[in-house]
Every structure is written in structure tokens, then in C-alpha cells.
């Protein structure tokens, strides 16, 4: 999954345009900034209470300057620190142009499951419910399948739902899907994978975009 994480993050970075306000969840999303073109100006915010995060520092990491995952970050000119109530105020109020979250499962209707595997993994809901509710655009990042090969893009999620009908785009190491009007659409096939790979590893109904492309 090491390489897959990089691939997914790199592709996700291309969703981010000049001047955007962007929130990144924990997990794969937190490494997205490392793949951004240095020429664009983006305000990354994190729900612990920072707007305007820069690259992860390679030296002199400061314990009191971290992203929402608890890892060191930096601040750019124009950035600000605030409390986490203010952070979530921005999120609920619709100030976030794009929110990029890790996911456990996504349904073909855009339902997001990313907070609990009952009896097993218990990450907790974090800020995902608010982010899914408030962001103008919600992108889910995840490995295409479980370690044992079971698909994570499904007709209906089997895990408890975080928020219904919220995911607008899914990026995995195999493919990029969009979800519009509750319909799942395959838009891109990632390098090294084929349409067959995607069909075999996706447990959901999906259409194939007329403009489908292989990701460069």
C-alpha cells in the first residue's frame, strides 16, 4: 500500500486549483500537499485550528504546529491559527472548496463509511460528518480493495455510514470515479490497471464516461 498511497495522493493533488480553501483528513489525504505544484496558491485548513498550511518540515519540527493527524506542518504567509470551534464553523458554513477524506467504503450513491469497523477497527468519526456535510466538494481517497481483496466501492456500504449522499469523487490507485445525481461514473483508469481490473474489483453499478482517459 506504500506506493498506492503515493499514487492516490499524487492524483488527488490535481483536484486542487489556485486560490482554493482545502481540508485534508487524516491518512492518505495528509500527504497530498507533498505533491502540489509549487506555483499555485492554496489555503489548506485543518480542523485542529489552522488555515494556510505549508509543506511538512524536514527539520526543526514543532510539536505545537501540527496537522489534524498530529504530524508536523508549517504555516504560509496569510495563514492563521484559531480554536477548533472556529475551524468547524468554517467547515459547516461552507467555506471549504474541497474536502479530501480517507474512506473505508463508498457506495454507488455517494454514501461515505469511514469511522468504524464494529468489533475491530475503531478510528471514530472525527470531523468527517461535518466535512461531508459542509464542504462544497467532497473527495474520498482509499485503496481500491481491502487487503484480502474485497471491494470497497459497493452497491451499499456494509459498515456504519458517516454521511449519506456526500461523496462527489472517489480516487483509488486503480481509478477515478465521480458521483453525480446518485450515479457512479468511471472517469479515469490509473497507470498499470485495466478496465478488467476495475470491473473485477468494484462491487457497484457504474457507468463509463464517454471521455474516459488513462491518467498520465
Amino acid at each position, binding site marked *: 500500500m506504500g506506493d498506492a498511497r503515493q499514487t492516490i495522493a499524487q492524483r488527488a493533488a490535481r483536484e486542487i486549483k489556485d486560490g482554493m480553501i482545502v481540508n485534508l483528513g487524516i491518512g492518505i489525504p495528509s500527504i497530498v500537499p507533498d505533491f502540489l505544484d509549487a506555483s499555485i496558491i492554496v489555503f489548506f485548513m485543518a*480542523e485542529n485550528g489552522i488555515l494556510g498550511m505549508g509543506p511538512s518540515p524536514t527539520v526543526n519540527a514543532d510539536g505545537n504546529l501540527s496537522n489534524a493527524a498530529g504530524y508536523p506542518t508549517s504555516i504560509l504567509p496569510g495563514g492563521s491559527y484559531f480554536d477548533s470551534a472556529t475551524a468547524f464553523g468554517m467547515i459547516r458554513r461552507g467555506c471549504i472548496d474541497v474536502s479530501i477524506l480517507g474512506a473505508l467504503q463508498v457506495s454507488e450513491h455517494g454514501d461515505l463509511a469511514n469511522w468504524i469497523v464494529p468489533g475491530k477497527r475503531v*478510528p471514530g*468519526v472525527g470531523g468527517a*460528518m461535518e466535512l461531508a456535510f459542509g464542504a462544497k466538494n467532497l473527495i474520498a481517497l482509499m485503496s481500491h480493495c481491502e487487503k484480502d481483496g474485497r471491494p470497497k466501492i459497493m452497491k451499499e456500504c456494509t459498515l456504519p455510514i458517516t454521511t449519506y449522499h456526500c461523496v462527489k469523487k472517489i480516487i483509488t490507485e486503480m481509478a477515478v470515479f465521480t458521483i453525480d445525481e446518485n450515479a457512479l461514473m468511471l472517469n479515469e483508469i490509473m497507470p498499470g490497471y485495466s478496465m478488467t481490473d476495475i470491473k473485477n474489483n468494484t462491487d457497484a453499478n457504474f457507468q463509463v464516461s464517454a471521455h474516459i482517459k488513462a491518467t498520465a
Partner: protein
Amino acid sequence: MNLFNKVTDYETARNIFFDGMTLLFGGFGGVGTPPGLIDCLIETGVKDVKLIGNDAGFPWIGIGKFICLERATSLVASHIGSNPTAGDLMNRGKLDVEFSPQGILVERIRAGGVGLDGFLTEIGKGTKLAYNKPLIKIGEKEYLYEAPILGDVSIVYAKKADTFGNLIFDKTARNTNPFIAMASKVTIVEAEEIVPMGSLNPEEIIVPGVYVKYIIPSKGYNWKWIWEMPDKQLRNEPPAK
């Protein structure tokens, strides 16, 4: 220098903690959780503690150190993913965990801190987290009612406190601390620096001193951060009891 008798020591703090107390702790993934007060809490031997805060920390970091000792009976938090022991205790029925959406949780603490009687929101409606929350109909729409949170004791980490208890914070160590500071009967602040009144710019004060009862000097963080612990095995192991 100590006009309001707020500046004190860990000995005083030790006597404030009690069995069965509701303890509100500042911090987000351990960042901004007061390290000296966590150790002080551990040393007292208090038990049956009801914890409320953003998350369960890491096994070695923040409130996680205390949770691993199995002396908390419940935890209200937004996530516990960074502390596998907390998940384990939950699954074994030893820790009653109530998950709250992160921003809703800090607003509930704020509501307690500013004397409001709760608020309405659509966030979480229809999910498993809503099972015990009243649904309130206003006009044609239904909302979840979120109750205010008030604690017995709050522990807070500040960059600077003046002797009146005015607080400023350091970067993202601010996080939930300002509202944790407002929401308990007794608020204890661990401050990296304690300064005379008049030393802080009145414009930059985040928490006015009226909310603060005790101020204790900090020696800074005494744990390794997660990025300083490359050994994944070690990271997830709870500290020795």
C-alpha cells in the same frame, strides 16, 4: 506577583482531582494536552474518571497515557483511532466510549462554557451516533438536540498565563483548550510561562482570566511525538502500568 492566589503547584492540583470526577482535557492528538497535569493525574491514583475531550491521544501521548491505565470509566471523544488500547478497552467493555462529531463536541463544550442550554444541528442525523439524541422539530425540519457539556475539572495547556489567568496559546496547541478552559467548575492551567499582569497584549488574550482558578508552571512536553517514534510496534504499546 500572585495577587489572585491563582499561581500554585502540582501538590494543589493533586488535591483537586477526585474519584468519579468528570474531567475535561484540552488537546488534539496530544498536541495542547498539559503533560505535567497528565502525570499529576496519573500519580494521584484517582479512578472512575469520566473523560471528555477531542480524542484518546496516543498510548504514550496526552490523555492516552491515563486511558491505558484503565482508571477511566467513560470517554466522550470524536475518535480513538490513534490509541489502539482505547479501542481494545472499548471492545472489552472496560471503557464506555461515546463518539461525537468533532466540531459538534467542541460546540457542546463551548455551550457549557458560555452558559447556553444546548443547540440544534442536522449533522449526524440518521446515523448511529444519533441514537440517544432528542429530535426537535422546528418548522418543517427535524434537528438533533446537542446538550451542553460541563465538567468538574478542566485541564488546559497554555503558552503563557498572567497571574490573573489570562491565557494565550501556541499555534495549533490552541485547538479545544479555550473552551475546555471555560466549561468546568475548576479550571487548572499548565502554562509554559507565567508572566505578571500587564505583560500580555490585551488584544491577543484568548481566554480572559475569569475562567481560570489555578495556574501551574509547565516543564514542557515530556513525551516523544508520533513522528519521533519510527518503531510502529513501540508506538502502539501502552506504557507500563
